[in-house]
């Protein structure tokens, strides 16, 4: 066999191995997650409040709180992040401002979440004198922002310039070209970015501890401490009590399944949009 072919097969083998490697890790993480989470899973998880140790209960308040915090966080971060990413992608390659903002965005991305929590604690919690859902959502928004910014920029830059030129050539203004042509073309990529950011913030524990705190009760008022899954999971997982441990794993399983569903939707959504357009 010629060397080229051997090299080729070795290369294909390596790439296949890499893909399998990721799958094996995932399978191991998921199987321990499902194995331990299924024991505590059940309808009661969704219908009952977080219990004391040894008592029967669920995670209803934590689930509702987490949905509110994550939803609000993304609602704040997504428009800002997409706009900022757009500005960066539209800016000149040589622009110093864009270059430094891009750099700062990278730094913000690697800022440990606990420091973001501390910052929001100082700015929001201490000023208002109370832990609150708002503070929690703000902290999560700050964590989601840089991921959305950088993926949006990356994806918009990949939109072929011919598309933009075609748009402008038809007499469309620049912002129309961006919102109607580029966003559509880069949409799936931008959604991937937003999803990566959802994935990052749904499991965050440290920043919520200092901002939303947590609550054992149903909490929907945004100016009060708010129940949430990550802090509940952390507190329950580290306890010696089996009933709490089971709920912790069930909660962890729930978060992961939640993201799985969003991921499924994210691949289905662009196809669905295309199909609908074609039908028109």
């Amino acid at each position, binding site marked *: 066999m010629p060397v080229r072919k051997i090299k080729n097969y070795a290369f294909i083998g390596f790439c296949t191995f890499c893909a399998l490697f990721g799958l094996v890790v995932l399978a191991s*993480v998921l199987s321990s997650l499902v194995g331990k989470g299924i024991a505590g899973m059940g309808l009661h998880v969704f219908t009952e409040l977080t219990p004391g140790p040894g008592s029967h209960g669920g995670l209803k308040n934590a689930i509702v709180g987490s949905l509110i915090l994550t939803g609000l966080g993304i609602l704040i971060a997504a428009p800002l992040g997409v706009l900022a990413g757009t500005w960066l992608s539209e800016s000149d390659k040589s622009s110093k401002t864009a270059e430094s903002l891009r750099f700062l965005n990278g730094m913000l991305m690697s800022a440990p979440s606990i420091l973001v929590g501390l910052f929001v604690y100082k700015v929001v919690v201490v000023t208002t004198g109370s832990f609150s859902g708002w503070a929690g959502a703000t902290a999560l928004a700050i964590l989601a922002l840089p991921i959305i910014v950088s993926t949006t920029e990356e994806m918009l830059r990949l939109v072929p310039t011919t598309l933009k030129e075609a748009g402008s050539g038809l007499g469309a203004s620049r912002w129309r070209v961006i919102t109607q042509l580029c966003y559509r073309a880069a949409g799936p990529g931008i959604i991937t970015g937003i999803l990566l950011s959802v994935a990052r913030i749904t499991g965050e524990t440290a920043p919520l501890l200092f901002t939303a705190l947590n609550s054992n009760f149903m909490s929907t008022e945004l100016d009060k401490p708010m129940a949430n899954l990550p802090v509940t999971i952390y507190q329950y997982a580290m306890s010696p009590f089996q009933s709490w441990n089971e709920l912790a794993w069930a909660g962890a399983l729930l978060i992961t399944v939640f993201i799985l569903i969003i991921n499924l939707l994210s691949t289905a959504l662009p196809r669905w949009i295309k199909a609908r357009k074609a039908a028109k």
Partner: protein
Amino acid sequence: MLLTSMPRAMKGDSIFYRLSFTSAILIFLVLIGIILSLIDGGWQALSEFGPGFVFRNIWDPVNSEFGAASAIYGTLVSSLIAIVIAIPVGLGTAIFLAELAPDWISRPISMAIELLAAVPSIIYGMWGLFVFAPWFSEGFQFWALENLVGLPLIGPWFDGPPIGIGLLTAGIILSFMILPIITALTRDALKTIPNVVREAAYGVGATPYEVITRVLLPSIKNAAVGAGILGLGRALGETMAVAFVIGGANRIETSLFMPASSISSTIAQQFNEATNEMHISSLISLGLVLFVLTFIVMGIARLLLRKR
């Protein structure tokens, strides 16, 4: 702006421009806010220990003597291990998904890999502690103790107690966590390359290996390096997963099997219980050090990117 001369369009453009520019500036403001609050909180420790804080290899809460050296070492080494593993594996996976596998295979695998990013950090920590560490200790570490320790240069890295946790374990867990980011971004980049390019290359009789390494990879080089930087950034700041498996020792050791600590795990683990003001201030200073560290690491990465 070289766009149309229609006034309405101009107005729309300028509003859109201002909106997006304000959003971009927001990144700057938030970051400045965080840094200012860190300087404010860490001032006490910084003025006590001076710039030497970074190089002091001591962390003694009892006697209020603090220095960042061991935490910096732990952060850098664990992140380095993470990208050394995750970049080749992530690229390989992306190539498999985008170039080699048929759609019906690559689609579900793609989803699965992205799901890795969905697993909350604390789950990685607990999985690392309960599942990976015991396996790693019995599998790799005993083997390494028998086969690698005698080797020159790399031998001392593997000379330590086979307890399953430590710097190497932390680095490996980190690599799992950043793998999906690197895979997703490079895969998407590969997919944007027009098919014409591939067809042309295959047309002249090149093998997939040659097409991918000589034609496709060079054209996504920027996206790949960008993905690596993103992954590295994530690894540097990752907290909970590291806290579970790094072993929490504020020392610098040659062996990768020994317990160590990272900046973010030290902050997360000690901040809640710290009562001494100098201790708290030192922890916040550590946060500042992490920012500077990130600044330097990413600066270097960008420099590399520009030169090529």
